[in-house]
């Protein structure tokens, strides 16, 4: 399997997952790299992306797997050709390599959440937020396909949270959360802050996915 590590930032963060898939198909065509297709009655391309990223989030660790029709093209060459053929602004392949590890081995991911306070960080917010995530139970509401809006305890899915005030207007949270089945959207951490600490609610948040890990906590490649 050929694996590509790519980043999605700048204006590209607004490209939806579905549009991103189509964008990659066209990028492969431009680079004249054919993806192998399944042999079934309805052939589809051997291509998969790990952990769909929410619209608006940046990432430096997105993973796309595919099987190339022409196996003589090395992953490195494919990556180089794709970058040369061109992407929308903000998408770049960082690395192309072969891997046999399954995407389902991904167990967690680390994201940076930059919380912005237009009128300055409230006094003591940093400490209160840090304490919030020490609680045994933190409930958040989440949209479920089957049941609609549901309440869940997100605490067991939060593996680690570092909270640091960067300057008078920003608090940075670096969170490692469960990924894969099921995943925790880091956005829910901000929702928790808003719900439990209404006075520490940020005016805006920027989220960037920094790294994905396997079950053992090593970077997944």
């Amino acid at each position, binding site marked *: 399997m050929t694996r590509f590590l790519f980043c999605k930032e700048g204006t590209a963060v*607004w490209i939806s997952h579905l549009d991103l898939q189509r964008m990659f198909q066209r990028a492969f065509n431009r680079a004249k790299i054919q993806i192998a297709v399944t042999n079934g009655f309805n052939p589809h391309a051997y291509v998969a992306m790990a952990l769909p990223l929410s619209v608006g989030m940046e990432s430096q660790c997105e993973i796309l797997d595919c099987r190339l029709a022409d196996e003589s093209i090395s992953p490195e060459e494919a990556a180089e050709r794709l970058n040369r053929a061109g992407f929308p602004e903000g998408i770049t392949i960082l690395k192309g390599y072969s891997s046999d590890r399954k995407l389902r081995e991904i167990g967690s991911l680390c994201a940076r959440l930059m919380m912005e306070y237009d009128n300055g960080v409230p006094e003591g917010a940093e400490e209160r937020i840090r304490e919030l995530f020490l609680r045994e139970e933190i409930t958040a509401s989440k949209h479920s396909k089957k049941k609609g809006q549901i309440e869940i305890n997100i605490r067991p899915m939060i593996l680690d949270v570092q909270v640091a005030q960067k300057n008078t207007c920003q608090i940075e949270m670096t969170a490692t959360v469960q990924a894969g089945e099921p995943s925790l959207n880091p956005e829910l951490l901000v929702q928790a802050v808003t719900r439990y600490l209404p006075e520490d609610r940020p005016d805006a948040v920027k989220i960037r996915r920094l790294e994905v890990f396997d079950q053992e906590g090593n970077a997944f490649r």
Partner: protein
Amino acid sequence: MNREMERILPQVQKPARYVGGEYRQIVKNKNEVDVRVAFCFPDTYEIGMSNIGMRILYGVMNNMDGVWCERAFAPWGDMEEQMRSHNIPLWALESQDPVKDFDMIAFSVGYEMSYTNILNMLNLSGIPLHASEREGLHNIVFAGGTCMYNPEPLAPFLDFCSLGEGEDLTIEIVELYRRAKLEQWDKPRFLREVAKLPGVYVPSLYEHRYAEDGTLSEIVPLDGAPKTVTKRIVQNLDAAYYPTKAIVPSTEIVHDRINLELFRGCIRGCRFCQAGYCYRPVRAKTPETLIRQAKELVEDSGMTEITLSSLSTSDYKRLPELADGLLDYCMPRNINLSLPSLRADNFSDELMQKVQKVRKSGLTFAPEAGTQRLRDAINKNVTEEEVLRSCATAFAGGWSSVKLYFMLGLPTETDEDVLAIADLVEKVWLCWRENTTNRARGVRIHVSTAFFVPKPFTPFQWEAQLPPEEYQRRVQMLRDAFRRNRSVDYDYHAPDLSRLEAVLARGDRRIAPVLERAVELGVKLDGWDEYFDYKKWLQAFADCGVDLDFYATRERPCEEVLPWDSISVGVRKEYLASERKQAYASRITPDCRTKCTGCGANLLYTEGNCDD
């Protein structure tokens, strides 16, 4: 991207359409360019990015040194709300700079119902609506596109109009502006000079005078402006710029495929069709050019579907040769080729099989009218026999669905003509029964009727539109006739939108205050069912004391001065009048390929012969 923008984007649907950054967008250093043009499309990104004209002119302007052309589109309602509540003015996608910072603001106007979007976009940009309120050379607002053959409803808002095909004229305009800016001309001087470019119409240089009965009595050119402005055409399409390295949107648009323009103009002369007269003379690209452009487009974009687009694609003289060449390239690469707007009269078995080799697409016919008499009157030279023969071929070839398009309210239409639509559809159904390879599968016959809108520069430009009540009576009659057949889906529209189209298409300057009032009342995105609000429109007309019937249902006497009389598309007015007489006599006019009937458009084509 500024912080405010970043914060509103998560709140809106499909944010990708507001940020630019697509593959092949053009970014220049704004400090190193002399002229910045904001190319505004008065509809959403998905519509605007599907427009070939916009893509061509974007490339043409950006190919000029020292000129940077960027794009702006009408925001969807949710975005507009966010922009207004956060005081964010409309921005251009490439630099994300406000549109009001641009030297020139160009609109491409192809549909009357986008007029309100033009005003709304200017308003969202914080640019004064009236040309007279914009002083100096900053924010020169101009427009092109088919609607500009009668720009009068927009006259007070536009500094000037660019008529016809813009490949050459746009360059001349921008060059003149560059010089004006460098030499610090005042605006009146620039307008006087730009009016000297063939194809430029400056509304403020024409005074419209009205008679007591409310009709236009005289159009007086001022300050040496020409009496008539004639549209421009491209002489050699093979040599003309065509965008083969073009933007690939990162999000889905309406026509999300490669558009290959085969030719301009149409040989047919359907008497209701504005495009048929306005795009004359017929000029085609060679198959060699087209195949080369198709390859470049496929390779550069990575897209896998090509549409051959022209007014009547199957009239392309060298279609078999082109189809073979394209199929040779497309088939091994799994690229879909689709041929829209096929005519029933020349839809051959062979051609269908070729198209089918790659992909079986929909089957659509537009007989437009139910009886041969009325089809002759509108010069839609399709016979029932041809429609049925094409359908028989298609049904025998495995097709099990067909779309049939008609118009209601055509001049000279009677109840007999209306009911004949149902008869024709019935015959199509019987044809399916006789020819289908699989009767158990059934057939879907989609019938759609549009409400006829008389347009400028057609033989029907003097005609009255039906009163809406009468149109509805005819729709009802047809609905009743279709009840018998369950294989038929009948789709018809309320008359409201077409009635407004009729008013705007043939409107004069007195419509301008209505547009302004409508926008004040919140009218926008009229082309979208979600937003179209006829009540608000009616209120705007009432508030301004303007009578819709004066424009929609009134037949103009031949001698009446028409608002678009200072504009020429090349086709002589006398020719249109004689075609109208032919219509009343139900006499057809041969197509341009069979015989030249002397419309006058050939005189524009100094470097070639029509339809060569």
